[in-house]
């Protein structure tokens, strides 16, 4: 960690670092940011369920990064002699599927696809929704009318059906599935962002920055976005479970990831045919989806407590 030059340069042991992180009087912008982050981490640590959710996500990321080292087989490596081997049989920790592919290795590599879906959706839908909602809320008048009616139209479609229509129009594939999910996921964020904006647009600190001659763009991105962030982040983490399930659902319907991609939803879909005799083929990827969705839900619940501005006062 870089130390502030104004601070004592001999910060070596952890108690000094802690003092540096918890000081009431930060000496630099960097230190002010770090103390904020540290107090956030402290409140996350004091919330065990949120910490569990956080750890699940850290593990998901680690698994995705180190997939080649954790997997015992290639994700598409077939061995028809060992097809539908039960969990625990020789070399197949979680069993094998109908082509003799190792389910453990496929789940490990599938985590990369899940992570990609999560990251891409989280980087597009909430950002777009935030932009639409804050612009509508801040400007009011006709921009508000137009933007929110468009939002209403998108909200009126059932999510999976709209995603299906997009994928059908654009062709099946994981990229199109992600695009379809993003296109259907943004309206709730726009609604939240607009509601938040309406409550703060008449606040004195917004009047103050207007009085300094700031333009609308600067006020929206620099002053309104930070106030909307916490509720959007909470909503994103809570929605992530739903987004993973939607991606899995599209995969299950054959409209998302295409074989032989080890996408978890597609794996369940393939295992469906053997569900009665060979339960593990569909259950193992189902468990993976369950654990990751649970992780996001726990983290989202915890973040709601941590980021709630009203909670900050106490």
């Amino acid at each position, binding site marked *: 960690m870089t130390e502030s030059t104004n601070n004592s340069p001999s910060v070596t042991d952890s108690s000094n670092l802690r003092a540096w992180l918890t000081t009431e009087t930060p000496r630099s912008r960097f230190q002010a940011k770090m103390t904020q982050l540290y107090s956030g981490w402290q409140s996350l640590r004091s919330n065990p369920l949120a910490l569990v959710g956080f750890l699940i996500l850290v593990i998901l990321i680690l698994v995705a990064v180190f997939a080649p080292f954790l997997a015992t087989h290639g994700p598409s490596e077939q061995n028809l002699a060992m097809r539908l081997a039960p969990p625990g049989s020789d070399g197949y920790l979680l069993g094998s599927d109908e082509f003799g592919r190792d389910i453990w290795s496929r789940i490990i590599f599938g985590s990369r696809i899940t992570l990609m879906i999560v990251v891409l959706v989280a980087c597009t839908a909430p950002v777009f929704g935030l932009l639409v909602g804050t612009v509508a809320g801040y400007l009011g008048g006709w921009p508000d009318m137009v933007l929110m009616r468009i939002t209403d139209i998108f909200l009126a479609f059932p999510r999976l059906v709209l995603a299906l229509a997009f994928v059908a129009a654009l062709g099946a594939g994981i990229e199109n599935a992600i695009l379809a999910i993003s296109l259907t996921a943004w309206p709730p964020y726009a609604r939240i962002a607009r509601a938040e904006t309406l409550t703060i647009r008449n606040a004195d600190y917004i009047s103050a920055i207007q009085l*300094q*001659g700031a333009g609308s763009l600067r006020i929206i991105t620099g002053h309104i976005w930070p106030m909307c962030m916490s509720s959007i982040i909470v909503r994103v983490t809570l929605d992530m479970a739903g987004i993973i399930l939607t991606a899995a659902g599209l995969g299950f319907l054959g409209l998302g990831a295409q074989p032989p991609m080890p996408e978890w939803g597609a794996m369940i879909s393939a295992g469906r045919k053997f569900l009665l005799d060979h339960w593990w083929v569909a259950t193992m990827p189902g468990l993976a989806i369950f654990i990751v969705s649970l992780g996001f839900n726990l983290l989202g619940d915890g973040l709601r407590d941590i980021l709630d501005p009203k909670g900050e006062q106490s």
Partner: protein
Amino acid sequence: MHSSEVAQQLKADATLEISNLDVFFGQGMERLQAVKDVSFSVAKGGSFGLVGESGSGKSTVLRTISGLVGDWKGTININGKSMDYRRDRAFYKTIQMVFQDPYASLHPRHTIDRTLSEPLILHGVGDRDDRVDQALLDVGLGTAFRFRYPHQLSGGQRQRVAIARALMLEPEIMLLDEPTSALDVSVQAEILNLLADLRQNKNLTYLLVTHNLAVVAHMCEDIAVMNRGEIVEVMSVETMRKAEPQHPYTRELLLASEGYVPE
């Protein structure tokens, strides 16, 4: 008459001149006139108090001058320049405002440093680090406060930051919207003294809105009393001190404020 002579004299070198100001809220059938035919002027370096009870329209006058309220008629002259509905960049360097509630006027997610630097960034002013440090010293806060967040500050400290922010662009006119009413009594005096000192050191012109007659008596030379959106009386502080105002509403107001004083 004496007071009209004073008014004439003030008009001659007025920095801020308001005449026949009407302000409206709402639209169509629900359009409501909040301020009716308000006229007054503040001389350069002077301090003018706008007094009245809650809802009398005194804060609305301030917000209209600052350009935060759009629906108005009449003339607002600042340094001899008539104001339009849209304000230009020079306007923001001439006039700044301190808000009533220091708990609501500082962005809760921005450090003090960012709050004070932003006006400088917006107007392309250089050596920001020095100016921010100097501004914090000017309002009696140390530079140790620079990278704190508003929630780490007390109400009085926050109001000092709000004053520092208003001074960052070195304005000539300060609009003060009940700057002490949200503060502890012990802190109120500190802030008022700070404002009085700053006015002297930086040669500022004040337009102060308050419902507290003791505050105007301490801070201002001239007073306008507002009731239901209209100015009922303009007088000097001397007149008020001698308790000889002309208008019955003003006498009522004075009497009400004396109810506080323990005999």
